[in-house]
């Protein structure tokens, strides 16, 4: 039996998974929508991965989770490695592109920049306050314009005179956009303007004070938008690499990390059949009223988090009442 490692990246919008071998070759991969149900989508994802996976030759000996629901799904699958998505992405990308110097990333809620030297992240920044210029911002503007966000890139490339749009913050950008529509700017110019605004907002916020050196890799959900990629290319004056597996980079990275760590635990696909329940309880022991999330497997508490102090601590192993 050869060793294999499983990585799962559960974001607010999509759930991604890969299984890799010891040489980082992808043995199975999948990408589905989270649809507000991280446990359900993780189960579904595991089902798809199981179908692609050769159980006769390989055995999954380490499992990693990343993304905003990393703790929840980590508890469910019994992960040996739970890592934040920034590190996971950096590891995934530097493994595939050992020479990379700059990683630009724009996801659903966050945008970040990672500077790399000799394969190691040496500096990074993440958007500080608002979500202007992230994926969710683009989606909501697409809705306003009555187009699918997936079409954004193609439409943007048709424009020759992108409209200037203030994108410093979501509120200002939206009010500005409404007026531009009202004033009769053509849709493709507005969309191209939005793509440019996303880029200039990004460079003025997370990119401020950072030396952006080539090779540059652009990833995250928004990297699928060729309009934004083109705007980056123009603004930075260099080639922008967008990997076709860019959306899997987080899952890939956390699978590598799980493999590198010494922790081993054979993963069993039977978790698909177990019953998982999450429960929110409000602590109520002080006015913080922390929302504590408890995860139960077949009725037994396996993990909980969300409390700001010890008062809200809940004992593992407690049975689910009712």
């Amino acid at each position, binding site marked *: 039996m050869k060793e294999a490692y499983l990585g799962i990246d559960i974001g607010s919008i999509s759930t991604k998974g890969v299984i890799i071998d010891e040489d980082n070759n992808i043995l199975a991969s999948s990408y589905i929508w989270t649809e507000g149900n991280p446990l359900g989508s993780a189960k579904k994802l595991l089902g798809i991965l199981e179908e692609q996976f050769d159980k006769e030759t390989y055995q999954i000996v380490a499992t990693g989770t990343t993304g*905003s629901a990393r703790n929840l799904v980590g508890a469910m699958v019994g992960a040996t490695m739970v*890592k*934040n*998505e*920034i*590190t996971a992405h*950096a590891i995934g990308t530097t493994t595939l592109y050992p020479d990379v110097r700059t990683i630009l990333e724009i996801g659903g809620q966050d945008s970040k920049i990672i500077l790399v030297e*000799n394969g*190691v*992240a*040496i*500096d*990074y*920044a*993440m958007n*500080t*306050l608002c979500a202007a210029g992230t994926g969710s911002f683009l989606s909501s503007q697409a809705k306003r314009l009555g187009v699918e966000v997936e079409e954004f890139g193609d439409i943007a490339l048709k424009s020759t005179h992108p409209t200037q749009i203030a994108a410093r913050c979501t509120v200002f950008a939206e009010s500005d956009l409404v007026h531009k529509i009202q004033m009769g700017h053509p849709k493709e110019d507005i969309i191209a303007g939005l793509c440019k605004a996303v880029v200039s907002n990004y460079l003025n916020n997370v990119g*401020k*004070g950072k*030396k952006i050196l080539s090779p540059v890799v652009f990833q995250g959900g928004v990297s699928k938008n060729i309009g934004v990629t083109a705007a980056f290319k123009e603004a930075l004056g260099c080639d922008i690499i967008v990997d076709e597996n860019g959306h899997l980079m987080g899952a890939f990275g956390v699978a590598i990390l799980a493999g590198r760590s010494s922790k081993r635990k054979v993963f069993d696909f039977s978790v698909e059949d177990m019953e998982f329940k999450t429960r929110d309880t409000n602590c109520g022991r*002080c*006015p*913080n*009223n922390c929302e504590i999330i408890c995860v139960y497997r077949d009725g037994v508490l396996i993990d909980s988090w969300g409390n*700001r102090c010890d008062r809200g601590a809940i004992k593992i192993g407690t049975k689910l009442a009712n």
Partner: protein
Amino acid sequence: MNGVKKVSFPSFTHYNYAFKYFMENGVGARYIMPPQMTLRTLDRGTKASPDYVCTPFKTTLGSMMDCLEAGADTIFMSMGLCRLGYYGELQEQILRDMGYQFDFVNLSEYSTGKRRDYIKALKRLNPRMSVAKMMLVLAETVKLVEQLDEAEAMYYKNCGFEKVKGSCKTAIKRYHTAVETATTGRELEAAYKKFKKEFNDIELDKPENPLKVGVVGEFLTAQDAFSNLDVEQKLADMGVEVYRYLNATSRMFHYKGKNLQVETSEYCKYDMGPTSTINIWAAKNYASHSFDGIVHIKSAGCTPEIDIMPVLHNISEDYKIPVLYLTYDSQTSDTGLATRLEAFYDMISMRKKVL
């Protein structure tokens, strides 16, 4: 009752204990300990505040409401060199417009630099205050602040490496309790001595060359654990020595602004704002002592701290030290912060292994 007031100062980290000691023993007023701030404090403060004001305005306003509900009849408010200096008057106006009834002693009204004016302010809390006694206790209070700051510095340097989890916290909590009930300088000294002994006896499991992170930033948000979502504890818990030069001792009682300015003259000609020089100096000091990273903490819209960011960029570039910039507003979430800190930790620990 003889005009003796039940006074509170809005909650501000461990200085609550120093205020209590000074007000009760020096001024002879009753001190109502500000209730521990909670999300409700922030929420109520935010709702009553103008939108774009810096976050400490909102938390201190919320804390004033907490104090008044806890039984205080007088609020005592600080002066300050930035917007802080105008907090008091606007907060009083807002609270009065909301219908709160209370006395308000705003040091900004007395900030002439003359001692007799500050005494006038304090006499409003207790008309029969003895100035001699007050001065004596003031000296003890300054000492107390130094000790509280010192204890905190020891705590964040070591708590990430304790063998028995929670032992550092227990020691410092016990110290704070002792300070809270002390009524004489001797008791304060004894409490501090006891703390130091107890703390130094805590068994640690620290590598020879641990990760070191220096914290710089805005006076209130960088120091107050509630306001910064316990960022120093979170960092320490990952196995990091956390240093912060900025505190009341270094900025108020032993401020060496002119020296610090000389030592940072390659970056700045002038003092750029209330905490600018001290933060630039500290950042350069961390960088030149091979720290692994710097964390810059501020509330949204804090002008002086925004203004030193170009300098921090240059220090980061010159010394090749990563700086994590954190901006707090009333919406900042624990999870968002944790993700940034974890990634920062991962990065500096991997860098350390390679370099």
